[in-house]
């Protein structure tokens, strides 16, 4: 391949820098009708908890300007069912699997990681310390440097897999939290998870989301995500995986230029199930046009003078 698309996230080499985001791609098996998901750099599973969760009461979603709110509440099949029912099928397809995991305590995170360790087929763990839609855990961890580092460190001790930590944009000091995770052994930082928002139905005079607030995602948050990724990439030594509002290859390339080593496509999968594949192809076309390998795009944005 003249314009190499592979990137390295620590010890893990991805076929290309495009992953699909947790919670927006199911367990990837849903995409058989659309495209070969094994061609992706990777897929991040729906957030896995120690035991199955049914999630929040409806309404869980509503649309906002160029974005959406969601308060799914981490409805998922649980790590056990995932490993037994989904993982073998993903393995058979040759998919690069990132398990997104969520616990309400450090012990839960550790137990999930240990369970995953027992099977083959997961290539990295992504710690969701930034879910805004659950009562316990979630944001509490992700906005605090010590707590985030504590989770990271505890998980690192029980797994041989690379550990990615997924950041909240609500941490007052995102760089500080990320740096603490880096020091605790994180192999990469994923940024960003959603930021909490609200919407009110003025005729019913009720929140549109039953949970009152939901996580804002989609193109609306792209500038925010890009800024945070840029800040993190400038400050840290480990790779940053950029996410937030990416719908096109052009969006993804902005993140690469800002310093992301890879990107994730989230909400865009809803409007177009093939969004991930299109972003992948578009990046390759840009590399060809500019005559560069994808890793030469990383952090290439020029700085302006004062």
């Amino acid at each position, binding site marked *: 391949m003249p314009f190499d698309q592979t990137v390295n996230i620590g010890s893990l080499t991805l076929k290309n820098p495009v992953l699909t985001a947790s919670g927006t791609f199911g367990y990837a098996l849903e995409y058989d009708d659309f495209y070969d998901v094994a061609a992706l750099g990777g897929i991040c599973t729906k957030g896995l908890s120690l035991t199955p969760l049914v999630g929040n009461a409806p309404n869980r979603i509503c649309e906002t300007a160029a974005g*959406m709110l969601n308060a799914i509440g981490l409805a998922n099949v649980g790590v056990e069912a995932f490993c037994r029912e989904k993982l073998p099928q993903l393995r058979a397809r040759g998919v690069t699997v990132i398990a997104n995991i969520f616990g309400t305590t450090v012990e839960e995170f550790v137990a999930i990681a240990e369970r995953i360790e027992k099977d083959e087929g997961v290539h990295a763990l992504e710690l969701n310390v930034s879910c805004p839609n659950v009562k316990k855990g979630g944001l509490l961890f992700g906005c605090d440097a010590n707590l985030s580092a504590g989770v990271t460190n505890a998980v690192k001790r029980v797994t041989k897999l690379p550990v990615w930590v997924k950041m909240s944009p609500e941490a007052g000091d995102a760089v500080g939290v990320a740096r603490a995770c880096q020091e605790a052994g994180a192999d990469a930082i994923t940024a960003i998870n959603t930021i909490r928002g609200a919407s009110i139905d003025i005729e019913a005079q009720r929140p549109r989301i039953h949970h009152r607030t939901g996580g804002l995602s989609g193109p609306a948050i792209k500038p925010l995500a890009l800024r945070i990724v840029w800040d993190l990439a400038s400050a840290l030594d480990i790779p940053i995986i950029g996410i937030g509002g990416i719908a096109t290859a052009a969006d993804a390339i902005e993140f690469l230029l800002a310093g992301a080593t890879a990107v994730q496509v989230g909400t865009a999968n*809803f409007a*177009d199930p093939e969004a991930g594949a299109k972003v992948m192809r578009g990046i390759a076309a840009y590399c060809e046009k500019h005559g560069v390998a994808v890793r030469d795009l990383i952090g290439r944005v020029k700085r302006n003078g004062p």
Partner: protein
Amino acid sequence: MGPSYHLLTFEAGQEIVAFPGQFAMVRGATWGQAPLLPRPMSLLEPGRRPAILIKIVGEGSRRLAHASPGEPFDLLMPLGNRWSPCPAGQRPILVAGGVGIAPLLFFARELAASGVRATMLYGGRSASDLPLSEEVAEVSDARFLTEDGSRGTRGRVTALLESAIGETRGKSKVYACGPDRMMAKVAEISRGLGVPCEVSLETPMACGYGVCLGCPVKRTSGGYLYACMDGPCVDAAAIAWEP
């Protein structure tokens, strides 16, 4: 058709095989970043020129309704399940509220094609809320109801349901699509008379194919159904209707 109902027909470029009750996720190819999500719409007709019936309630439905000829759209279809077939010996009673007529007219046509003329109770606020009523009357034994009495019987569709079921001496199956409160009432009446009832769920949806988990509906047995994968057509008895 009333001012807020619109029929939209697409040139699919290929034969779309779909069944009554199934839906499409529809998005304008030129919408850009807003509206962001595709909108779920019941299929009114399959084939090379699939059609939907739109009621304007917000920005997305407004743009669909006012599409200009030749405007490009992205459609994901067919999605979800179909109305379950009506068992032999049971008469299908279709209960439609306003735009809920779309999947039921499609169903009535399928039934008519197989030689069964369904009973249709079709209601709305006023005469202009009964789009496609002539087409409905062609393929079913239709009774119209309006709350203001401007067409057919004055009242709500549920007013005639009991007698319609009675006419079949309980040998019927009810299919309903319309506002939540109407469907809950239809479900209650059907249960009371011991006849099976199926409803087509309407919830907000982001994906339409099971990955966003944004379309839950409370289940009587605990937890949630997902409208796009477990429905939209579901046994009314499975649903824990909101009070």
